[in-house]
């Protein structure tokens, strides 16, 4: 098997990138509809069911409506920052998809492939870096509209993202130490056990709990959707956005939600491993287990939204700094102590 030439490598990476991008985009499009339907059923309503069979074309209708709406920019807005903010937000959202593996390795044209754009040795750190860049979209969106509600909303959202980013990063440290690697694929394979109790969600349950709560806050989902607190902030940082630039901010939020779900599957739920003895985790089946796990986590996000009320702002800060971060730090000490006493090497 000769090694791939540069152009072949570029073509292969491009194809994988297209597949990953397309899958995420389609998932996002239908996620808006699924969320509204599931939420409606939880509240004894029907939800959007008019456009196409059981309403499945609703997102496309929404997209067309958004594109044909007038784009309004406040007269006092800072023009360039106002236009750049949604682009920054969505750029950061899509960039972090690059290092995540989607499903097991598979064979095609006699070679082994992985549905992953770039297999970086520092994969998790890269995601952390891109997440920290995502704050700029929100800060700029809030500031540039020159409106006190958007400024307050932007400050709140970015303070929230800051605070919970720390807990999010700390919750990864334990599993990174256990796998002794930053590569996402290594972390997935480290969880491959005979039974699903070897998944990080069970072995490192405190880390998983911290991760999931912090991820909810990081992507502004209920109960941490403070930007949506319309009685106090109208619509937070995106109050002044209309038409498709509002649409871009929405896409970024949903893509972020999908990213944290896929990451939770990879880092804590054993990725594509079935977790049940004698059930294969290889190429065709692994994709199914992977998709089921991601779907489950996305469902939990919707479920939470249908169940929980919103946090107050001071409660949010108190919980992030005085509960999540200490728990995550203590858990790092526990894992480090265990590895120092009983670990190999």
């Amino acid at each position: 098997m000769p090694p791939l030439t540069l152009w072949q490598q570029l073509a292969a990476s491009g194809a994988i990138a297209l597949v990953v991008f397309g899958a995420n985009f389609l998932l996002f499009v239908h996620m808006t509809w699924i969320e509204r339907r599931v939420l409606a059923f939880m509240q004894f309503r029907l939800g959007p069911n008019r456009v196409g069979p059981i309403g499945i074309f609703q997102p496309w209708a929404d997209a067309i409506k958004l594109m044909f709406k007038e784009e309004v920019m406040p007269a006092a807005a800072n023009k360039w920052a106002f236009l750049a903010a949604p682009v920054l937000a969505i750029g950061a959202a899509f960039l972090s998809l690059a290092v995540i593996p989607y499903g097991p390795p598979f064979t095609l044209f006699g070679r082994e492939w992985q549905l992953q754009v770039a297999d970086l040795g520092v994969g998790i750190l890269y995601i952390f870096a891109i997440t920290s860049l995502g704050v700029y979209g929100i800060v700029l969106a809030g500031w540039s509209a020159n409106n006190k509600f958007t400024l307050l909303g932007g400050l709140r959202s970015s303070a929230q993202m800051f605070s919970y980013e720390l807990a999010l990063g700390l919750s990864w440290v334990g599993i990174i130490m256990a796998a002794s690697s930053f590569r996402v694929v290594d972390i997935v394979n480290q969880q491959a056990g005979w039974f699903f109790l070897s998944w990080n969600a069970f072995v490192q349950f405190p880390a998983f709990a911290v991760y999931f709560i912090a991820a909810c806050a990081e992507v502004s989902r209920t109960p941490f959707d403070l930007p949506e607190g319309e009685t106090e902030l109208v619509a937070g940082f995106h109050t002044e956005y209309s038409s498709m630039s509002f649409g871009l901010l929405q896409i970024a939020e949903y893509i972020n939600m999908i990213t944290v779900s896929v990451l939770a599957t990879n880092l804590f739920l054993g990725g594509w491993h079935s977790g049940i003895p004698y059930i294969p985790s290889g190429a065709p089946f692994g994709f199914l287990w992977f998709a089921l796990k991601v779907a489950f986590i996305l469902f939990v996000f919707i479920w939470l939204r249908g169940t929980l009320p919103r946090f107050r702002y001071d409660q949010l800060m108190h919980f992030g700094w005085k509960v999540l971060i200490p728990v995550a730090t203590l858990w790092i000490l526990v894992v480090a102590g265990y590895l120092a006493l009983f670990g190999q090497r």
Partner: protein
Amino acid sequence: MTLPGTLDAALFWLFAAIAVASALVVILQRSPLYSALALIVTLCSLSAIYGLLGSPFIAVLQIVVYAGAVMVLFLFVIMLLNVKREDHESGQGVMKAVGAMLAALLVAQVGSVLVRAGPRAPSPRFDASTYEMAKVLFSPYFLYVFEATSILILAALVGAVVLARKET
């Protein structure tokens, strides 16, 4: 993945050009917000150059620490204090002279190092993976420097908490 020389060089020049251009924007235009944004672009293209040099770890840390954390605080301060465009010219002469002197000093330093080094074969690629970096950082040569830096950061952290604490 290692890139062939031409592509490597092309990417290097691309990011170098972006870094220099955005660094010029930082100092040449007068709106503090745009300066801060241009500085973020500079830091990100420096990170790309670190990546091209074969150290994704340093590249990512550059973004996490500088572009992700330090610059967000800069932006916060600029936005909250609503810093206006600086149009006033008072006291600019002295500052310009000091700045020019410092710049000349830096150019002389870097230039002297480059001249003394002279042309030579490219050095072997340093394995800058996370594991190797950690081994170097925690080796006896750097351990005390590393720990001293940690204590410095801890002191700054404690100082920030003390300053931010409300008097009760």
